[in-house]
């Protein structure tokens, strides 16, 4: 048990503990903050695996973007101090049972498979390497998915604006006329 292993188990405990509290806490704002800790723990796990670029993206997109968005929508839609209704006991029991059985089954499967991690090749995940491959047009390049995903982001942006837009007075009159 060396330092690296201790750090790994500490990070794993942080991720799983925070995630468990995020799904069980009855106050929605606390739940969001626990989710934040869990995502920071996952970024720490990426740092521990020495894939710094993914770790940075994780912090920028999840912690800086999605959690802030979730907290915004909590403030817009409900009283954050109020406790949510407790789920029914039967539902808790069956969900926990399903989750535990699934975990046990998958862990059993992983244990029996036994991955052979023999490859001693160096792992080069520097930003320049990722950038070169992301924008290359050769057979292992990712330029096509890169462009497709940028179109997806544009579509999501336009879609969000259209969905969340307040209907104007002219629109409402138009809709009412249609119904008649």
């Amino acid at each position, binding site marked *: 048990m060396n330092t690296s292993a201790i750090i790994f188990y500490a990070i794993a405990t942080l991720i799983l503990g925070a995630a468990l509290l995020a799904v069980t806490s009855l106050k929605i704002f606390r739940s969001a903050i626990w989710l934040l800790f869990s995502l920071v723990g996952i970024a720490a796990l990426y740092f521990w*695996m020495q894939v710094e670029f993914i770790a940075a993206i994780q912090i920028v997109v999840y912690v800086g973007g999605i959690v802030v968005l979730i907290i915004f929508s909590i403030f817009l839609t409900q009283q954050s101090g109020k406790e949510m209704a407790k789920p029914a006991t039967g539902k808790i029991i069956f969900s926990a049972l399903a989750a535990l059985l699934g975990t046990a089954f998958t862990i059993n499967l992983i244990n029996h498979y036994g991955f052979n991690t023999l490859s001693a090749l160096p792992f080069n995940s520097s930003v320049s390497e990722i950038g070169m491959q992301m924008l290359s047009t050769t057979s292992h390049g990712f330029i096509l998915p890169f462009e497709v*995903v940028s179109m997806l982001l544009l579509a999501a942006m336009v879609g969000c604006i259209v969905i969340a837009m307040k209907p104007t007075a002219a629109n409402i009159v138009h809709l009412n006329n249609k119904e008649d």
Partner: protein
Amino acid sequence: MNEIPLTHILFVSTALFFIGMYGLFTRRNIITMLMSIELMLNSVNINFVAFNKYLFPDKLDGLFFSLFIITIAAAEAAVAIAIIINLYRSHQSIDVDDATEMKF
């Protein structure tokens, strides 16, 4: 680094996935259900990065998959929150049990 086998990282991501599934089953509030989905997506990302690093260190495909998953998760969260705000405007509630108009 080498003392931790790949299986232990997979155990963490498995547990994280099923914690997210538990949350998705028990919660009735759309925002908290969305948070559970984020946890599940993150466990998938951990798997991709760990497999890439331990089994195929000469390639970077796993990293690209997790990058694209993160992008799509961000787009999904943005659209979901627009829908939540719209639903709140029409129902004054974001509980899934209150929005039953299209339930058969």
